[in-house]
């Protein structure tokens, strides 16, 4: 079953006009912001396909920026997001591309500040639902419909076992999991959808594992 909840049908509460081009675009922006973990100084947004063609009429641009400002799809400030971003000092750079992508509603967002940067690609699949298909060059599928653990690690044997062992010890069930790497033996990113959230100490345990870099927990969004 693709749709599981009555609120997938009656909902979300959102600022119009399009569940795919406005609410979905805002959700992609907000997931990018949450993954970045703080307010960026600079946001580069690239729209493809239908987003590129119709973003002005649907407010996909203001919606994406509203998401980057951590606003919900129903936040009335959504309409004024470009001015708000300017006021709080986020430099927004928007462009469109003619490049053919697999999905008609695709956006690429790069957030950065002096401490670092994060790049995501997201697709809006209808009714306000979205999927992140790429994080920092790693191909994956993130729906944010469950608490999601992201573990950056060196690509070597036993890493999946060590991380899942910690989850098993704390009796946390895994709903979905995938590992993505850019090249063999380099860095990899583990994505784990959990049935429940986990606490700080469990995350710390993972971070203390050898060969593990950053560990992030993305809440249900």
């Amino acid at each position: 079953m693709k749709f599981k909840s009555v609120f997938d049908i009656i909902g979300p509460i959102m600022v119009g006009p399009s569940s795919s081009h406005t609410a979905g675009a805002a959700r992609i922006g907000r997931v990018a912001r949450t993954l970045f973990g703080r307010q960026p100084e600079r946001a580069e947004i690239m729209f493809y396909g239908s987003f590129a063609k119709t973003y002005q009429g649907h407010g996909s641009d203001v919606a994406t920026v509203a998401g980057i400002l951590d606003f919900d799809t129903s936040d009335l400030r959504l309409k004024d997001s470009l001015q708000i971003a300017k006021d709080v000092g986020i430099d927004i750079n928007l462009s469109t591309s003619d490049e053919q992508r697999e999905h008609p509603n695709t956006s690429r967002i790069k957030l950065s500040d002096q401490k670092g940067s994060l790049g995501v690609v997201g697709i809006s699949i209808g009714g306000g639902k979205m999927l992140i298909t790429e994080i920092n060059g790693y191909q994956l599928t993130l729906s944010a419909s469950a608490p999601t653990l992201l573990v950056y690690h060196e690509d070597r044997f036993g890493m999946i076992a060590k991380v899942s062992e910690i989850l098993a010890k704390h009796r946390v069930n895994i709903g979905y999991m995938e590992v993505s790497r850019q090249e063999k033996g380099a860095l990899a990113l583990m994505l784990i959808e959990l049935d429940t959230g986990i606490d700080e100490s469990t995350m710390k345990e993972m971070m203390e594992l050898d060969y593990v870099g950053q560990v992030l927990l993305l809440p249900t969004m």
Partner: protein
Amino acid sequence: MFRNVKELVELANTEKKPISEIMIEAEMNFSERSREAILEEMYRNLDVMEKAVQRGLTEDIRSHSGLTGGDAKKLQTYMKEKPFLSGNTLLNAVSMSVAVNEVNAAMGTIVATPTAGACGIVPGTLFAVSEKLNPTREQMVNYLFTAGAIGYCIANNAFISGAAGGCQAEVGSATAMAAAAIVEMAGGTPEESSQAVAIALKNMLGLVCDPVAGLVEVPCVKRNAMGAAIATVAADMAMAGITSVIPTDEVILAMYRIGCSMPNTLKETALGGLAATDTGKQIEAKIFGVRVKGV
């Protein structure tokens, strides 16, 4: 849990419960949340819908493009000043459905039911029928659960977005959802709700998604208007005992197959239908300038 409308009606009959109650219990089971938490979330949706209806009927709504706005008010004024032909409930449903969709086009706050493009029909019929039936607030929330149950069946067996299956999937689904919910609020049986779904959706089959300039405005607002009218009439027909020769789930499957064989130019790409008319292309050129081909 139910997977289609037949199973939903059987479950309601066996347990002697309305469709809304079956949906609430399924949601409790799936989400592991309390009944109170689930009802509270739906009450919030109801509040947002009520505000959108009110805004559309009383404020001067105009979309950014200038293509839509003000028609809900026009209809209300007409109903006050002229001896209108259709019934009061029917024209109220049309006017309120237009009101919500106009608010949506003007970037106001709405609830996607099931999408933003079709967001007028469920709340429009709800508040119009409520004026006639004077339901409790709880019955109004139940209306949304019944509509949600039908939308759930359609979404999982066909599609609910114009990009995937044309307007029949979007406004068509919303119309079918509203028809079933009207029946339950008016005291009809779960089987009559199911018949109303079939009658309503049959009259939406084949409807393409052809928005001018790709905007959720033309013809979306007026399709929400007629969706509300079809839903209301389909509910009356079902409660009169009229049944669909083709069973409800087969109508949904037919909608799915039609959507699959629909060309992409007629699925929210703004390349065919009304979007490709001379006027449609001129409007697109005026709004977006250079990027329009063939004008």
